[in-house]
């Protein structure tokens, strides 16, 4: 296990390309990687002050698959997602119990720098938030530039590549210098996805990425998520069950901060083991 990748001094070396988990054991087949889970969450509880948002969740999130997290509002989906790259720590008085292993390494260990974790595990938020002072191109490249990447040819290449992966290139290739906020809502969200993948993370977390978008933009985002899963582990929080059913391989159902059921999406939606899962899926509550 290369525990050193998590504690590399972040600001001193440019990350081109960023450390990739697979690079050191090339001998492993893709199969083996796919079989070993990306995240292993062990007895995780998240507390905001005295309030428990997540209680005793144990779960293994498979690598290079799409895992959906569903559940009614306030069940702790977002908190759970954000705990996977330590974004929830931005809320004061947050505390966790239990462990989260990413590629076998405990991301909450004392020596681990959350900045490095977040570089390897990207996140896209519900509300698109391109930086208002930056152009489309600057928005995509900001993560690389602020981490010290200066190679212009490399940046240009990443710009096009990221925008293509986010299915936005054809729409903006002539307007790269225009402000990011001049795009439509759906385009802005895809810009944010491009920005997140430009730093080449290994995982993409998505917090209801399409909930503020119209059906056409939503369809585009879902298609995009599907394509991304070829290269990335994707974890998506959604309160839209059709969306979870349509675009995920695995589904976890959270209710009142607890994990009720986790399994393949087909099984969860067609033959759930838990009564509460079935009730929620069939719309009896939530």
């Amino acid at each position, binding site marked *: 296990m290369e525990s050193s990748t998590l504690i590399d001094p972040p600001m001193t070396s440019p990350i081109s390309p960023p450390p990739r988990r697979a690079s050191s054991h090339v001998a492993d087949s893709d199969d083996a990687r796919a079989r070993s889970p990306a995240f292993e969450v062990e007895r995780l509880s998240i507390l905001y002050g005295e309030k428990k948002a997540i209680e005793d969740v144990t779960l293994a999130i498979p690598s290079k698959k799409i895992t959906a997290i569903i559940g009614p509002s306030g069940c702790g989906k977002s908190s759970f997602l954000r705990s996977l790259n330590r974004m929830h720590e*931005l809320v004061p008085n947050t505390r966790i119990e239990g462990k989260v292993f990413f590629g076998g390494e405990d991301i909450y260990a004392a020596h681990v720098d959350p900045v490095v974790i977040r570089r390897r595990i990207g996140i896209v*938020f519900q509300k698109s*938030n391109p930086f208002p002072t930056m152009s489309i191109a600057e928005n995509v490249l900001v993560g690389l530039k602020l*981490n010290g990447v200066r190679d212009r040819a490399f940046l240009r290449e990443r710009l096009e590549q990221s925008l293509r992966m986010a299915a936005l290139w054809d729409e903006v290739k002539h307007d790269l210098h225009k402000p990011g906020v001049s795009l439509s809502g759906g385009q802005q969200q895809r810009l944010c996805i491009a920005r997140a993948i430009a730093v080449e993370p290994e995982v993409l977390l998505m917090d209801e990425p399409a909930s503020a978008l119209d059906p056409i933009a939503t369809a585009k985002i879902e298609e995009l998520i599907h394509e991304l899963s070829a290269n990335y582990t994707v974890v998506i929080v959604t309160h839209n069950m059709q969306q979870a059913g349509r675009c995920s391989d695995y589904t976890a159902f959270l209710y009142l901060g607890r994990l009720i059921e986790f399994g393949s999406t087909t099984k969860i939606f067609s033959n759930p083991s838990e009564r509460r899962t079935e009730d929620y899926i069939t719309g009896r509550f939530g």
Partner: protein
Amino acid sequence: MHSKRADNHTWRTIKSGLASTVAFISALLVIAPLGLVFFHLLVNGASSVNWDFFTKLPTPVGTPGGGMVNAIVGSLELLAFASIIGIPIGVLGGVYLAEYGTARGNFALRFMADVLNGVPSIIWGVVVYGLIVLRFKSFSAYAGGLALGFIMVPLVTRTTEEVLLLVPAGYREASLALGISRWKTIVHIVMKTALKGIVTAVLLALARVAGETAPLLFTAFGNRFWNHNLSEPVAALPLQIFSYAISPYDDWHRQAWAGALVLVAMIFLVNLVVRFLTRERVAQVP
């Protein structure tokens, strides 16, 4: 019955008319002093504002003509000094309050900054007199600039904090999520987004201290000639106005009026620039 209702209606109309008249008169009273000041300054000072005023040194008593170029340049020197002290400390203090401080510490800091903002400006003059002037046995441009800088610090701190807090948390999150470190997020994302607001804060503080007289009385002291050495007394517009206005000579009175007009015009100009900079919102809320 019907007539009573009509009476009520009339009475209400009268009350409403009275209230809006009182409000209108109050509003007039608010802007009246500004109008009066400008009127007086123009009537009394405009005739003495000429090319000589901006290019010539003061003349000895009884000799007509002369100007205040030394005071204008002296004021600029003092403001430059004040900026060296006031801008970095003030802005960084605001950054600390908005981005780093704990709730309890911030409360104390804010309270102290507000108290400092309320300290009469002559106190700063006395403090710097004790700290610098007595120690180096000389009035100086350094001392005057320091006194003005002290006044700027809490002003700039509080306004900087406020404009930084206007930047939506989503931008900080988005940046941190890209694996960008905290201080780079603050400098390149948060402060860049709030740049206009910070510039405004600095300009308003400069405009405020540009007109300060009391803190300069026993620090910069004033000088009828060029200041060739920053550790010697230096002229400043407000000081020159003061000493000319209390003199018994009509000639000097006219010069004092002209100086006052120039000073107010400078402050007016700064405020216009601020208006221009802030014609859009400081931070765009997505």
